[in-house]
């Protein structure tokens, strides 16, 4: 049961979008999935409660410092995502400490990358702390570039420079990025999954779907490697 924390202390980096797209996609592929909504604004809970989606995804709201560990232990699911708020809080750092994998969504802006650095340093320190009692404990993470130009559109020089900086700093990154797409905004507006928006006019839905499929493939590949490693 991999626990996947989605974290960047910068607000609006794409955490909730990434969480919802991946969680609903895996659910649609037959996985049992839950999202712990650990953002006081409860964006995923709102999506589920006030929407008409038929997804099998379970959303658990009201996750706080005091009940995080207990709530995690209660999850009978194959995949558990934690959508975190855009701030540096103990709820965020504890979620990282308990996670099997951390996704750090980053927009191509200097502020986002700097704030992502905070999340990454926290992951590395939490890993060190955990290794004191369990030397084999790892908290792997990947940076995910979000709101990137759709394939074929020009890539900004800012983005190229930031990608080069991330590379040079030896920070691991998803090969797939999440493009800027109307359909990804629409999932929150319509409160439906991508697949359920088939009949709505929300930009290039096929391309959006393919993007999420690729990201999910990459994520599952990484999680498989992690499981193999921890079993070894």
């Amino acid at each position, binding site marked *: 049961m991999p626990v996947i924390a989605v974290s960047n202390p910068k607000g609006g980096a794409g955490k909730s979008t990434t969480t919802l797209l991946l969680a609903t996609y895996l659910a649609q592929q037959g996985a049992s999935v839950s999202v712990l909504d650990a953002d006081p604004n409860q964006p995923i809970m709102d999506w589920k409660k006030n929407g008409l989606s038929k997804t099998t995804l379970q959303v658990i709201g009201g996750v706080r*410092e005091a009940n995080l560990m207990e709530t995690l232990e209660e999850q009978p699911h194959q995949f558990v995502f934690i959508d975190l708020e855009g701030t540096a809080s*103990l709820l965020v750092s504890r979620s990282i*400490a308990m996670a099997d994998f951390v996704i750090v969504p980053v927009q191509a802006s200097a502020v986002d990358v700097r704030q992502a650095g905070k999340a990454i340093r926290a992951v590395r320190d939490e890993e060190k702390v955990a290794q004191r009692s369990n030397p084999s404990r790892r908290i792997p993470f990947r940076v995910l570039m979000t709101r990137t130009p759709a394939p074929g559109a020009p890539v900004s020089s800012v983005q190229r420079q930031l990608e080069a900086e991330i590379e040079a700093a030896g920070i691991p990154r998803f090969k797939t990025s999440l493009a800027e797409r109307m359909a990804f905004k629409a999932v929150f507006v319509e409160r439906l999954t991508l697949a359920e928006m088939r009949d709505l006019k929300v930009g290039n839905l096929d391309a959006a779907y393919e993007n999420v499929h690729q990201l999910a493939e990459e994520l599952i590949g990484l999680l498989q490697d992690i499981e193999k490693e921890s079993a070894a």
Partner: protein
Amino acid sequence: MNKFGLLDDETSPPLLTSSLTEKIAMFAPVKPRQQVDIAAADAAAAQHGFVSREISEAADTKLLGRRRRTVPSEPTRHLAIRLSSSAYDRFVAYADRQKLTYHDALARLLDTVGG
């Protein structure tokens, strides 16, 4: 098209999807959770500015020597501001140092200048 009438383009996407489903099926639903030393984890995070953002009266009194309202006594409104990176960093660092939420930090600054 090859002589068997098979179109590679049409057969590959479903194959991709089914392999993802198969891979997913290999993940077990329940696994014992990592044991986490919360106090040590919190201490490590504090160095990077990760502090409690939850309002608890006991913690407030301890940290700030004054009580904060757990429930706002007046209606709240939303303010979104765009500011320079340096001003952003100063504000966030100030709030972190003072262990204040952003709205409390803003109120504190206004209190300070009598605004």
